[in-house]
């Protein structure tokens, strides 16, 4: 049962992870581990490592940019920042997500009604 749950969650996460990254960056620049920890804490990604290929692709498509900055520990870190195009995409996603989640919730509610 929990296997099925994990499967469903993995499938849904796959489609939204990219926008969750953008949304997280919209509230402030972050370095890799910071971003990974936030997404893991929210249970939005199962493997932190797969975040980096995703970030590389998002950089290549102009959704995010990177810069190097010295952190509190005194070491240089690669920070990710959202681009103008990235902000636009978050806006688009918000519209789609609201519509989808509303409809899905609605359907699930009906289903619940039939069951009980």
């Amino acid at each position, binding site marked *: 049962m929990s296997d099925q749950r994990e499967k469903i969650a993995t499938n849904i996460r796959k489609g939204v992870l990219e926008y969750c990254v953008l949304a997280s960056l919209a509230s402030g620049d972050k*370095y*890799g*581990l910071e971003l*990974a920890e936030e997404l*893991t804490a929210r249970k939005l990604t*199962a*493997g*932190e*490592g*797969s975040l*980096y*290929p*995703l*970030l*590389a*692709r998002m950089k290549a498509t102009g959704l995010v940019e990177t810069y190097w900055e010295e952190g509190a*520990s005194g*070491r240089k*870190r*690669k920070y990710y920042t959202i681009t103008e195009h990235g902000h636009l995409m978050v806006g688009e996603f918000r519209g789609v997500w609201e519509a989808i989640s509303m409809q899905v919730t609605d359907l699930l509610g009906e289903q619940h009604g039939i069951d009980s």
Partner: protein
Amino acid sequence: MASTAEQYSAEAYLRELGKLLRGAPRDMGVELLEDVAQHIEDGRALGRDDDQILAALGSPEAVAAPLMAEYAAPQERAILRRNSLVLGAVALVLGVLVSIIDTTLADTLGDLIFGASVPEGEGSSYDSIYEQGALQLLIFAIFGLGVAATAVMKGKAARIYGYAAALCMTALVAGLITSSGIFYIPSMVAAWMLVGINGRSSKSVNREPRSKLIRIIGGTALLLPVVLLGAASFTSIEPNVALYAYLALGLAGGIGFLSNSRIALWATCANGAALLAVSTVDQGLLLAAFWLAGTVYFFFGLYGLMWFTRRGTAGGQR
């Protein structure tokens, strides 16, 4: 989740990841590796232990997979493209060879179409052979062109046309099997190989099982005459240097083919091409035998060169 990564030390993890990224474009692979290395260091700086960090990262395969999926597909497409162009060129050359044979051979497709127009025993017969010969040459080169055309088509058109061309060639071979049909066998094989390429979606990367099968069949086919001749040399044929040289070469070629040696594949392919060309230029009694042997050598060699995974890169992925 922890069980997948905890057998690695951080260094081994990065080494494994680097190995998996070998096929990716250099800068992208290096960047990803640096990102993950930084992630591990940042985690350590926060006081995590390595097992914890690596477990959260997920397996090296999972980290490399998105990048490799993105870059393996275009690479695969490029290989398919190259192979289909090679086969197209092969079909074209074969078409010319066949048309040469067909114009010079008696009782062929040409005679079926034009009628056996050369009257027996007349002095002027050579003229008429060559007059019609040129025309026939053109007409039979069309089969080569017809098969080769598949190579420059794309998508659905290529798939449908390729099938049609291959079926045509098969019908031609089957219909004329007692006369010139066998000379169209190589063109037919090329046509079906093109069908095979067009039928492959760029996602079906794993052709290892089929390559292995072809390697075994081809190796056996190449070794069989050597073994038979070897056995014969001990019983009936008078042994001489040429025979031993042939046996040694044949043995090396067959074993090389079985063990996927690049040199043996090239040699097999070139040997087949030479047999085909020689049997066209110097048509003798054994024309058909040379032609068929050439066909076998040529296509097994070509298949190996096109599809066998190069040794050394094999096993890099898995």
